[in-house]
């Protein structure tokens, strides 16, 4: 069983079919590239995987669990007995209802999928360290009482959060900027910080949306190394990128989309030589 499975995934915006019956799998431990012309529907797929919006059709499975499917219409909800009692604080009901409703983004993160955004979305006015600490939120527990009473367990947890966050900062080479406000970092560092924050959520699948955009070639090379390292630490990676050097350099497999449809899938070599891909995306000569 693949780690992530997309089955007949479709998304419509009004009359526009942005993603059109797409199927593919992401296998444990691989780096999979998702490419395609601008507006092909790549980011939309990411948004469906991470629960930002539900698909119009189709399903997504993560470790065999269904994490996305079309949300129930009001009519269907009214016709579902479970919906009527879903607010009851009974765990049996809750469990069954959870299987029917669409999951919210934070629940998907809890299941082990973390992402970065195409347009950077850091907490601009918080420090670099605080940004990374956000990733640890769902892995820790302290609540209201813990905060006020501050038992030793909660103090330990706080120390753990900071230590972990620092670990990821160091990994992404950002330790020097620990107490800077995120918005004051240069663009390239902001990209890295986004990755550090996502890593802090300890995902088993990391989703990167154009991580190399805005980086110069030198920085891009460094990023490629980093991504490989992340994969080597056991995290599966799904990646959108327009920089062919990156895609061809690190991906084991590539899926190509055009106008919402999957037009090719295979190793970098296969994809590179696929005439449809060349016509729609790469252009005649190699970049």
């Amino acid at each position: 069983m693949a780690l992530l499975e997309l089955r007949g995934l479709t998304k419509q915006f009004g009359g526009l079919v942005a993603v059109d019956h797409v199927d593919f799998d992401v296998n444990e431990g691989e780096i999979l590239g998702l490419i395609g012309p601008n507006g092909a529907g790549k980011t939309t797929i990411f948004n469906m995987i991470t629960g930002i919006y539900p698909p119009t059709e189709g399903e997504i499975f993560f470790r065999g669990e269904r994490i996305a499917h079309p949300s129930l219409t009001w009519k269907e909800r009214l016709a579902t007995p479970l919906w009527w009692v879903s607010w009851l604080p009974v765990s049996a009901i809750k469990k069954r209802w959870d299987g029917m409703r669409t999951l919210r983004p934070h629940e998907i993160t809890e299941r082990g999928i973390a992402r970065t955004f195409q347009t950077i979305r850091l907490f601009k006015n918080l420090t670099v360290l605080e940004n990374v600490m956000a990733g640890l939120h769902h892995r820790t527990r302290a609540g209201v009482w813990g905060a006020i009473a501050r038992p030793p367990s909660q103090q330990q947890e706080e120390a753990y959060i900071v230590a972990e966050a620092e670990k990821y900062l160091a990994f992404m080479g950002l330790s020097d900027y620990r107490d800077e406000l995120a918005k004051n970092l240069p663009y390239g560092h902001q990209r890295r910080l986004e990755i550090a924050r996502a890593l802090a959520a300890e995902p088993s699948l990391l989703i990167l949306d154009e991580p190399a955009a805005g980086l110069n070639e030198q920085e891009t090379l460094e990023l490629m190394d980093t991504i490989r390292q992340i994969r080597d630490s056991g995290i599966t990676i799904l990646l959108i990128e327009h920089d062919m050097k990156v895609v061809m350099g690190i991906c084991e497999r590539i899926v190509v989309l055009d106008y919402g449809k999957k037009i090719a899938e295979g190793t970098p070599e296969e994809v590179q030589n696929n005439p449809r891909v060349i016509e729609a995306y790469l252009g005649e000569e190699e970049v």
Partner: protein
Amino acid sequence: MTALRERLQKVNPLWWQLGLLVLAILFPLPLGDYHRSVLWRTGLYIILGLSLNIIVGYAGLFQLGHAAFYALGAYTTALLNIHFGVPILLTLPVAILVGAVFGYLITRPILHLRGDYLCIVTIAFGEVVRLALVNNIFGITGGANGLSGIERPVLFGLVLRQPIYHYYLVLFFLVFTIFAVRRLENSRLGRAWMYIREDEVAAEAMGIDTVRVKLLAFIIGSGWAALAGSLYAAKITVVSPDQAKFLESVIMFCIVVLGGTGSIPGVFVGTLGMVTLPELSRALKDWRDAWLGLAMVTMMIARPEGLWPSRRIRMEIRAAKEEASVAPAAGN
């Protein structure tokens, strides 16, 4: 000068806090009852400000109907005491509970609203509560007159009648509030509020249950406002729908922002500016509101980040302001 500051900074913060506490205890002693009452009111509004600060300052949610919870607390105490003879101090926990439960019920369905839409809905809820009280809902709120005949609180046989006792009662809860709020601010929950204030989508993508976290802010803030309402009822012995007036909510909101959102000393300063000084400047008579308005405008222009902003906001705003100040001056 700098040497002195350094020396002062070395003093254990605990000493500072103890010193302030002692000052707060001794300060009213030489004053008359009027000024003691003013102090009482100041303390009460600081508690209200701190409770609203959780919602507005920490979680970044616009709440312009906070007075409704203040009134709910007051009415809870009044009803329990008048109809069931429950001693005032025992009604406090019930009031907190009522405030928190209402906070939950009211805000649960509207949490997904953004910014100003949330703000308007909280105004609407505030007005609904006030009008329900005015219209004598279920025949228990006494209509526009409100309820009267609330007993005085009794503590170890001492009837708390004089303003000074009420001042100390409020002070006690104030100290506890500050303690709790400071700890909340620097906790995992406090950080989660910060994240959703900054960027909700990113926070959710990081695994933060935004609905739950926002709800917690509302529940805690509302419950705490209700506590302040009870303390009010205990001193004034009359509760009326006026407590839920939109203007009250506005004042609380201004307290938080004028002092500096998210800042505890800011709430103190805000209360002094919005409540205490206007009260002490009765000599201005009819022009009091105009002066207050003028002060609000000038303060905001002079210090948009608030009079005593939290360190964090200070950093943010300064950066933004300097950026703006290097942009071409407006209008030439």
